[in-house]
């Protein structure tokens, strides 16, 4: 009989205790993985939202612009530099922007806004803006019309829950309103008739048209076809003022941007701010967004450009958010550490009980000729089996939930959702698919087991055979 066979048999001599210990490891691993998956998934979503709808992974800026974001810290961007940067194997495109602040007014409502001058076609390739254009809007008027139409009662009730929501995806609309695939053929045409809005997109440079965020649109009560006025300070202290028609509404997943963003063709922005040919930044579109690739690309580009321009990474551009996430991440890790501490005590309880209960047996085994080293190996294998049983069950149990949560993220509604959005987060919590954090849980359990193994091995090596036999 091999040692592992003896260890496996020993494991089941006290089934209940083995199962309770394995179950405690299972619950720790399961909850740690699910919690971590939600936490990391939420961070990932948040970063992606901000990066892919606003900051980009790398930006070219004037060196003073980040600390003092005003139009005096702009630079002239020429095609030669763009072409040079595009020669880098990881650079797909370099898209200039002219960004500033203004006061937006529509009717009696005013709001401080970010005016983002973009090259519409190229920006769309980088940020996929057109995918986020609002297609349906559940205004109170729309909901009234829908309720009078022939749609199921369940959907009618949900209309009130999602009042004033804007959708750029039909799938999301179906999910929120509880419309099944079978019912979609009959219900969606009705919703399209009453709720759809026709969007234009900023494809014609130089026209006086803008696309605004859904949150801003709601605040200003300005829909497609309405006019807004922008007022601010232009380049070198000039006055900037202009009247623009809202050509589209865009719903960005980051609420603190969605509430204040105005997209405008870059030439219009240059005209508004009297800054011809200037840019405040250029978003660098990359082929690979892997953190390491981003860093290396940034370093390579830094060598091409000259003062006063610098390359900023997404971490530098979103430093506050990165710090907030790091602090939040630490608190999550403390919670998991507490969870594992509890489990460690559970495992130690089992080890202590097992050592006390089988003391006489250990004495007998050594007296008939089993080396202490071999006995310690069998006991270590028993503990490893319990640990891996718990870890395997925990990992297996968490996978369906983690995959489901990734495909169907948890969506908050009502006050809770508002609270999230007020803090600048999207009220959606997806899970992160298995990554190195899965490996870490195994490592942590392994560390607990190694400590327990060291403890039991020490006890065995210090065991006095005669005393043990008397136990």
């Amino acid at each position, binding site marked *: *009989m091999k040692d592992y066979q*003896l260890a496996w*048999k*020993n494991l*089941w*001599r006290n089934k209940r205790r083995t199962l309770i210990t394995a179950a405690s490891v299972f619950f720790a691993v399961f909850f740690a993985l699910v919690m971590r998956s939600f936490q990391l998934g939420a961070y990932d979503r948040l970063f992606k939202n901000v990066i892919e709808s606003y900051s980009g992974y790398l930006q070219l800026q004037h060196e003073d612009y980040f600390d003092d974001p005003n139009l005096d810290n702009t630079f002239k961007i020429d095609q030669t530099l763009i072409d040079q940067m595009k020669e880098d194997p990881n650079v797909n495109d370099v898209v200039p922007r002219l960004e500033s602040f203004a006061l937006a007014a529509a009717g009696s409502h005013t709001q401080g806004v970010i005016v983002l001058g973009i090259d519409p076609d190229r920006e769309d390739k980088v940020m996929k803006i057109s995918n986020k254009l609002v297609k349906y809007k559940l205004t109170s008027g729309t909901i009234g019309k829908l309720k009078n139409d022939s749609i199921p009662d369940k959907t009618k009730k949900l209309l009130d829950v999602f009042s004033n929501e804007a959708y750029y995806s039909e799938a999301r609309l179906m999910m929120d309103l509880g419309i099944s695939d079978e019912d979609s053929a009959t219900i969606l045409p009705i919703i399209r008739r009453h709720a759809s809005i026709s969007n234009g997109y900023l494809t014609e440079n130089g026209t006086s048209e803008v696309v605004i965020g859904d949150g801003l649109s709601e605040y200003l009560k300005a829909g497609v076809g309405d006019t807004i006025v922008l007022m601010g300070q232009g380049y070198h202290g000039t006055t900037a003022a202009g009247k623009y028609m809202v050509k589209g509404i865009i719903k960005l997943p980051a609420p603190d941007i969605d509430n204040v963003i105005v997209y405008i063709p870059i030439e219009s922005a240059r005209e508004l701010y009297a800054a011809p040919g200037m840019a405040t930044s250029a978003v660098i579109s990359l082929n690979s967004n892997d953190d390491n690739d981003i860093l290396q690309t940034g370093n390579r580009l830094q060598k091409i450009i000259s003062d006063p321009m610098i390359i900023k990474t997404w971490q530098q551009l979103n430093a506050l958010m990165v710090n907030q996430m790091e602090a939040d991440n630490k608190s999550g890790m403390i919670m998991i550490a507490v969870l594992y501490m509890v489990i460690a005590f559970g495992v130690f309880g089992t080890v202590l009980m097992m050592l006390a209960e089988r003391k*006489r*047996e250990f004495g*007998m*085994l*050594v*007296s*008939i*000729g*089993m*080396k*202490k080293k*071999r006995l310690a190996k069998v006991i270590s294998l028993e503990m490893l089996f319990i640990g891996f049983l718990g870890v395997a069950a925990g990992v297996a149990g968490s996978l369906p939930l983690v995959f489901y949560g990734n495909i169907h993220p948890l969506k908050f509604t009502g006050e809770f959702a508002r609270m999230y959005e007020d803090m600048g987060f999207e009220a959606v919590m997806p899970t992160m698919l298995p990554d190195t954090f899965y490996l870490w849980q195994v490592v942590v359990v392994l560390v607990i087991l190694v400590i327990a193994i060291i403890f039991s091995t020490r006890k065995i090596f210090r065991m006095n*055979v*005669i005393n043990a*036999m008397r136990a």
Partner: protein
Amino acid sequence: MAVVEINNVFKTYHDTEVEVKAINGVTLSFEKGDFAVIVGPSGSGKTTLLNLVGGLDQPTGGEILIAGHRLSELRSSELIDFRMDHVGFVFQSYNLIPVLTAAENVGFIMNLQKWPKEKRMARTDELLSSVGLADRHKSRPSQLSGGQQQRVAVARALATHPEFILADEPTANLDSKSAESLLDIMEKLNHEEGMTFIFSTHDTRVMKRAHRVITLEDGKVVSDEIRTE
């Protein structure tokens, strides 16, 4: 040559300020084929003497030789190997491994010694037959009576052809019938195979069958009676 030689052995325990002489200058020898019992009141040093002879404990004075090997010259890991190769143990409370079958318990030491599977199985069959448990190979200790468990323990002790078997109160937990049956088996092994048995006991049934009765009192041999049939 004597299987076991005990030369002027002392074992002293220091319990706080009191010095207890558990074994006080014992000199004995056991020949091959002995069927000897060590008797004496509780605290007389029977179990201590058995522990010393079995190499489980070291004397504080004197020396013990087993088959010519001086135990005091062996390191603790060598003592474990020595016990496995030369000494068979039968304990009062059977001490079988509860998760193993009777055959696996008997084969356990052979397994530790890495015997080939076929040889191990053949020896296990032979031993279980010799203790009358040929049909209980697959029974777990919990499925066997006390007497049957003790017979498995005897078979286990014999597995690797030890020089002698040390049996500490082997019948203490058995009913009369089981005890007699166990002693029959031990006696038979002693007669037919010349196996040496050294018992420590209070049991008169064991004493009646012994060829030699050694009486200990206060750690000293007070009588060493050899019986002739």
